[in-house]
């Protein structure tokens, strides 16, 4: 009678699969949304343009988490660490080494990729709750690492770094906010299309087989270790790019900007948007930016409680997130077309 407990993996995997066809929006819907995104900044105030840019940036970060958790089934509560790494890379390069802001983004992505890959290696042996805790530990440690004494001359220590907000290039007559909006939109689109491609490719299928049943995947010849670390690396890279963008758009980085609260917010964004459903990343991002503001306008003293209640409402009504809403909408549209 061995002392080890046996756990027969018969029940549903921790992260449920999203059918491949439902992974993105239909072409028609996508084009309509894209058109709206292109045109809206002309009609709204700069402040709203700024908010929309932030939604896109957080959307990119949630998308990265979706690839990691929804795609390869690895929990992560530590995305804020890679986000911070990307943000600081951009800020340090811009402020201390005068690198052009657009060039800092690929570098931020590379640095974060490296960090993600390196973290993914020892994390291989952890799964589920243990992995969540390890990533949680990473997120909690990040602000303290950023405050380290001997890094202060580059990072600005607790005071952080202010960054020069860039103007539109070639003297184009659009404001900084609008320029950064379109700049972010292009990057978000590129990353979105790239991610959809990734998940539909062989690597994507490898991720998903690992998510659904790691042991079976391994038995079938999938190099589990390689793909798991790759998933971490890719997810970290995308998060790092999002971080770099945020450094440019907010024009300031500080350890207090990247606390565990950010990691938790990104996680909530993923759940609300629908785990594994890439378009939902942006819905989730909108949730985490706008719902706290709504909660605050309802009650300043109880803003946290109102937020919690709204969150509960969402997860009671649509436990599978925005994806559920999209499916229902699709069904209704289908019924309408039939009649």
């Amino acid at each position: 009678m061995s002392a080890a407990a046996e756990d027969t993996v018969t029940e549903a995997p921790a992260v449920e699969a999203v059918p491949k066809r439902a992974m993105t929006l239909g072409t028609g819907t996508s084009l309509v949304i894209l058109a709206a995104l292109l045109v809206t900044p002309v009609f709204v105030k700069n402040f709203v343009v700024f908010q929309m840019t932030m939604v896109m940036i957080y959307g990119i970060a949630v998308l990265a988490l979706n690839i990691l958790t929804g795609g390869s089934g690895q929990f992560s509560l530590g995305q804020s660490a890679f986000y911070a790494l990307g943000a600081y890379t951009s800020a340090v390069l811009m402020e201390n080494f005068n690198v052009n802001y657009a060039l800092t983004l690929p570098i931020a992505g590379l640095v974060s990729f490296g960090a993600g890959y390196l973290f993914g290696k020892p994390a291989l042996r952890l799964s589920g709750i243990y992995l969540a805790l390890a990533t949680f530990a990473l997120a909690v440690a990040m602000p303290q690492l950023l405050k380290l004494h001997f890094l202060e001359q580059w990072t600005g220590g607790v005071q952080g770094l202010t960054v020069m907000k860039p103007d539109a290039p070639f003297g184009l007559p659009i404001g900084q906010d609008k320029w950064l909006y379109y700049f972010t939109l292009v990057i978000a689109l590129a990353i979105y299309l790239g991610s959809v491609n990734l998940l539909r490719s062989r690597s994507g299928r490898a991720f998903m087989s690992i998510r659904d049943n790691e042991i079976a995947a391994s038995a079938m010849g999938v190099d589990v270790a390689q793909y798991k670390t790759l998933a971490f690396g890719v997810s970290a890279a995308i998060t790092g790019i999002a971080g770099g963008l945020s450094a440019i758009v907010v024009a300031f980085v500080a350890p207090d900007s990247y606390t565990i609260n950010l990691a938790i917010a990104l996680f909530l964004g993923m759940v609300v948007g629908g785990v594994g459903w890439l378009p939902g990343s942006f819905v989730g991002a909108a949730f985490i930016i706008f719902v706290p503001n709504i909660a605050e306008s309802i009650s300043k003293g109880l803003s946290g409680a109102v937020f919690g209640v709204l969150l509960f409402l969402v997860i009671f009504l649509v436990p599978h997130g925005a994806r559920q809403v999209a499916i229902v909408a699709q069904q209704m549209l289908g019924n309408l077309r039939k009649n």
Partner: protein
Amino acid sequence: MLATLRTAAISAAVGAFLCTSGPAFAQKKYDTGATDTEIKIGHIVPYSGPASAYGVIGKTEEAYFRMINENGGINGRKIKFISYDDAYSPPKAVEQVRRLVESDEALLVFNALGTPSNTAIQKYLNAKKVPQLFVATGATKWNDPRHFPWTIGWQPSYQSEGRIYAKFLLKEKPDAKVAVLYQNDDFGKDYLKGLKDGLEGKASMIIAEASYEVSEPTIDSHVVKLKASGANVLISITTPKFAAQTIKKAAEIDWKALQIVANVSASVGSVLKPAGFENAQGLLSAAYAKDASDPQWQSDPGMQKFFAFLDKYYPEGDRLNSSVVYGYGAAQTLAKILEMCGDDLTRANIMKQAANLKDFTPDTLLPGVKINTSATDFAPIEQLQMMRFSGEKWDLFGEVISGELSH
């Protein structure tokens, strides 16, 4: 024809006369956020998140301006106080301030709290030429009118308080062995710098330093470590919860060091009472404002106005909470500036008046502490008086000292 010319000439002359007269007769001039009937004040503070304890400052100020409005407003205009939560997160602070300036069209941003949030919004506000008034943090860098002409602080800077303690030690305990416990953020580090600067050549008096993070549940082990260094003076650069823990632990392990605690944690009700009065005997600190629990201020006219305000407009406010006293003082200072502006409510004039305070004494400041600003001095309050805790209250001693090196 001649008649119209003459009228025009007279109007021009009258107009010229009005323009060159004092503020009371100036033409009405407004920037976005000010009208004949209303002045919009923008404000951010953490109402949620780790620093939510400071949310009461916002509530106090909102109540103060309600009181002003009920008494006729300022120069006939009502104050619209728009306050948002920044959750002590710099990106959120940027978002909220942009909302205040671009969406709500506030005239100025008042008393934003925390160095990270204020650093995040400083460049933006200065670029947009919107006053960043009476920043609610003691970081020394807010006194920089040359580079940031739209940003002005309010409370004594942490460095100046550190310098005052250093000077006290040099004078009263020149061979002290000093241990420093400080919070690992801008507050703690700025203080430490002031301390070391103030000790000048004798910074070696500090024989042990320990920093802690706000996320640590208790700093007891740091206190144990510092005691082991053999120090006989402990400088506690801590926020209220940790200050109380330090006082309690030091007493528990029977560490008979002279303890100096930072002003932010000197509150009798919020810190010393929970820590235990018997443990806090002989504690030193410095103050610029009156402590509402101190019996000597009970019949002080300024404090009576403060108590009356609380009773009528903010009854749930805890008068023993130094943040409430703080909010009242800051709001009163803003009200004074707005009054001084008269009918010229341009942002430029607001900064001009903010830089023009001469010996202004809000109700809640200690006697002898006065607010003075000038075009080169953007640090309104620079003076503190040291005090010693004895029995159940603070005893002020010595003179009101300025913490600035140059003044």
